[in-house]
């Protein structure tokens, strides 16, 4: 059977009327990642209520984040912003004593043009705690791009390589728990310029990726962000950097332009195919020949067999809200699924170039047409397309999940992919665990019939 394959990759653009989380939600995972940080979201009740509802029980766990809630006086500039922020930051310092305070600028601070970037250095000097500013607002960004703005701000604070003392190196090693085998180390690692990975991952996942590169005798000299703010990696001329998440284009740009780092463009280590391609892009840069990768990938695919049987031939529709869509779609196509549409909030074709190329190659390899990629999708158009296509699975936000389920379309909340561990060889199973969950439930409930549970069935 021959399938005609369209090899050109086009990105459509719709109206941008879609549902996604506000980018300030990044504080929820970043405050946990950066243990000595405190996030102060400078915004209104709307921002606060979003965090309170989106983060659910985390609110009650004495989180290291808070709202600086703007009141009418702040909006109309009757009150002094600087004095207000100073008061709150002093209180935070007293109560929590963080190593860094990160101000999250919101839509409101943009509109009233509050000069956070101007105030931060002054206040930093006055209270003696570093203050970073990240403009993670809904006017410019979607969901995970919030992390991008924070990491881009943080990149400026990374020390330069020459200041990287021996002592510091040791802390880095301690944090990433390299076994202390000083003597072997020279043999174990190839002699290569330093490599810093960027993207916030749970520490065990970061460790797994370090280990994966160590197998290829490549040493990761640091992560942006590190577990603690005080352990930021050194950056500068001659330092190579590589991203682990597809939504970090601003950070990548900052690293190249401001920090003079060399960016390694690679697909993202999501799924065994992505992880292998990621390593295969990194190794040649350092003149290292990869070893045993093919077998390793095969081994992982072998271990996924039970899940692959479940997903093969099933169709997926990504409504798009967290920018992981292309990588996930590429992995799922490789798993034998058919992807109808990849909705995505924002597509940086340069930063995602290698990932898009891998998507194209994967489609050719699996003999399926390249799915349409829709940037800034329109949810109501998408729902119309969903009704026509009737995919086996829609990956969507929580606003649409229950209504779609009630109309007989299985859904998976896209947010879960942001919080689950999905990177590296070892976590490929977790991605499929998520993807197959609705399919498995459907199978369990199949005998009951009753797949549509709305009164007016035709009113989709």
């Amino acid at each position: 059977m021959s399938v005609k394959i369209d090899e050109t990759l086009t990105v459509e653009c719709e109206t941008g009327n879609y549902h996604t989380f506000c980018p300030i939600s990044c504080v929820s995972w970043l405050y946990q990642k950066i243990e000595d940080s405190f996030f102060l979201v400078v915004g209104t009740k709307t921002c606060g209520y979003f965090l309170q509802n989106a983060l659910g029980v985390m609110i009650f766990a004495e989180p290291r984040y808070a709202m600086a809630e703007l009141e009418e006086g702040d909006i109309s500039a009757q009150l002094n912003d600087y004095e207000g922020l100073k008061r709150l930051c002093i209180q935070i310092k007293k109560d929590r004593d963080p190593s860094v305070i990160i101000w999250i600028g919101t839509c409101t601070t943009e509109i009233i043009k509050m000069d956070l970037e101007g105030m931060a250095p002054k206040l930093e000097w006055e209270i003696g705690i570093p203050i970073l500013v990240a403009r993670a607002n809904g006017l410019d960004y979607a969901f995970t791009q919030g992390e991008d703005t924070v990491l881009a701000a943080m990149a400026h604070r990374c020390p330069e390589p020459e200041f990287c003392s021996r002592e510091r190196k040791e802390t880095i090693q301690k944090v990433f728990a390299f076994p202390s085998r000083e003597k072997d180390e020279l043999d174990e690692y190839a002699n290569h310029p330093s490599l810093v990975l960027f993207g916030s991952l749970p520490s065990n996942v970061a460790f797994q990726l370090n280990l994966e590169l160590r197998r290829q005798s490549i040493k990761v000299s640091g992560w942006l962000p590190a577990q603690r703010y005080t352990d930021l990696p050194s950056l500068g001329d001659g330092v190579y950097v590589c991203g682990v998440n597809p939504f970090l284009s601003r950070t990548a740009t900052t690293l190249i332009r401001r920090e003079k780092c060399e960016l390694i463009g690679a697909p993202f280590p999501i799924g065994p195919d992505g992880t292998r391609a990621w390593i295969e892009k990194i190794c040649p840069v350092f003149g290292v020949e990869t070893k045993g990768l093919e077998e390793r990938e095969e081994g992982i695919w072998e271990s996924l067999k039970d899940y692959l049987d479940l997903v093969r031939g099933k169709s997926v529709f990504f409504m798009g809200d967290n920018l992981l869509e292309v990588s996930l779609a590429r992995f799922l196509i490789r798993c034998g699924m058919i992807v109808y549409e990849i909705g995505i909030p924002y597509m940086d074709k340069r930063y995602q170039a290698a990932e898009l190329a891998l998507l194209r190659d994967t489609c050719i390899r699996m003999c399926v047409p390249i799915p349409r990629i829709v940037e800034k999708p329109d949810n109501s158009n998408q729902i119309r397309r969903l009704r026509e296509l009737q995919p086996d699975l829609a990956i969507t936000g929580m606003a649409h999940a229950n209504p779609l389920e009630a109309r007989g379309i299985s859904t998976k909340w896209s947010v879960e992919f942001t919080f689950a561990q999905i990177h590296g060889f070892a976590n490929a199973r977790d991605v499929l665990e998520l993807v197959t969950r609705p399919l498995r439930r459907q199978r369990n409930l199949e005998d009951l019939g009753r797949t549509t549970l709305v009164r007016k069935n035709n009113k989709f």
Partner: protein
Amino acid sequence: MKLAYWMYAGPAHIGTLRVASSFKNVHAIMHAPLGDDYFNVMRSMLERERDFTAATASIVDRHVLARGSQERVIGNIFRKEWEERPDLIILTPTCTSSILQEDLQKFVDRASIISDSKVIFADVDHYQVNEIQAADRTLEQVVRYYLDRSHRQEALDQFVTDVPSVNIIGIFTLGFHNQHDSRELRRLLRDLDIEINQIIPEGGSVEDLKNLPKAWFNLIPYREVGLMTAIYLNKEYGMPYISTTPMGAVDIAEFIRQIHKNIDTLASSSSNKRVDYEPYIDAQTRFISQAAWFSRSIDCQNLTGKETIVFGDATHAASITKILAREMGIRVSCAGTSCKHDAEWFKEQIQGFCDEILITDDHAEVGDMIARVEPSAIFGTQMERHIGKRLDIPCGVISAPVHIQNFPLGYRPFLGYEGTNQIADLVYNSFALGMEEHLLDIFGGHDTKQIMTKNLSTSTGLIWNPESRLELSKIPRFVREKVQKNTERFARQKGIQTITVEVMYAAKEAFST
């Protein structure tokens, strides 16, 4: 600018959206940046709503900031009209977009000239009112809009129904147990032979609003939302209203008697026969509802004099306080509400039923108060439940804001006679079952838990070293908290940071002399 971790009520537009999406075939458009449409998530997740929430955002982005949003807002209004054919489209700003000070009213005026749907602008000031106040206003605005319109068209039928009938105003989406309460109220009214003219906004149609004046009078089960509408209907159409919440046997009786009074007033002019509800109240209270008997049973005796704290919205906090104090003989050490705008009413309601009154929307103040009083049980919102968890005090949830577990599938009204049963269960189950707890204490029981500091961590900087921690765990549970408190007080007085066993005993000596 203030430091905030938690809020008891959301921003104004949430209230407007709750009203809009409760009506049938009404679409809300919010003028908002990307990500502000999480109301849809709340509705879809908490209410487990099967239908798409009829609320969309007209996105405010950089282009809008540069060029203004007239084109886009009007475009979105027409688009929704074309796609969904709603009866009414409500446009609302969010906190952010209201700062832009665009003349949204003008867009609405322009759109409504051409549109087949009605279009109105929910004018709520985001920096003056919160979610519940905005809901109250929006409901009144919608009702007023439709009645004024019918009035102008002279299509208003003001003749009341032949048989006694009522409107129930204020049942709506994401309300605390609203669906169950609505069902219970309908049952109660059916028992009293009263017809229901309309229930708004939940499930109501805006086109029917012109028939609101046909009811004999209005019922406002919750104070927070509906009162403005009732007052408007009273002023313009002379409709009486009852704003007593039928929660707890005493107030239900009061509620029914007010209904009686209203019917008598209106029926005396017609030939309807007089009604007598007293036998009904008596039978329900004494025999059908189990709550009155429960308060007399020996089980409830164990609750006598136990200290509690109540916190929530004005309606629920006031009613629960009265039930605990008046109907169950439990001592309410402090009752409070986050509805600061309704503080006077609240104070008046619970006068004499509690020792202290707390009006605040700062959860830390509530937390500190709970830590200070150390009640046996708390009745509050989800926030109080979590404070209780930290302090090891049980909590029954009686008011919004709530989590998904407070949208039960089973029948759990708070109003009416079945409501009294549900509340009695909730109260009884919230107290660590008296005798069991007592016996466990006496025999050293199952207490292997680590010691937790009973204060919220923001307020204490004291460290217990491992030895003193161990020592503290050896002290019998019922005096442990007191020892801990006294030791910490002593340490603070002496400026000691780390508490050792020596400090503990020094504190003991200091306080025993």
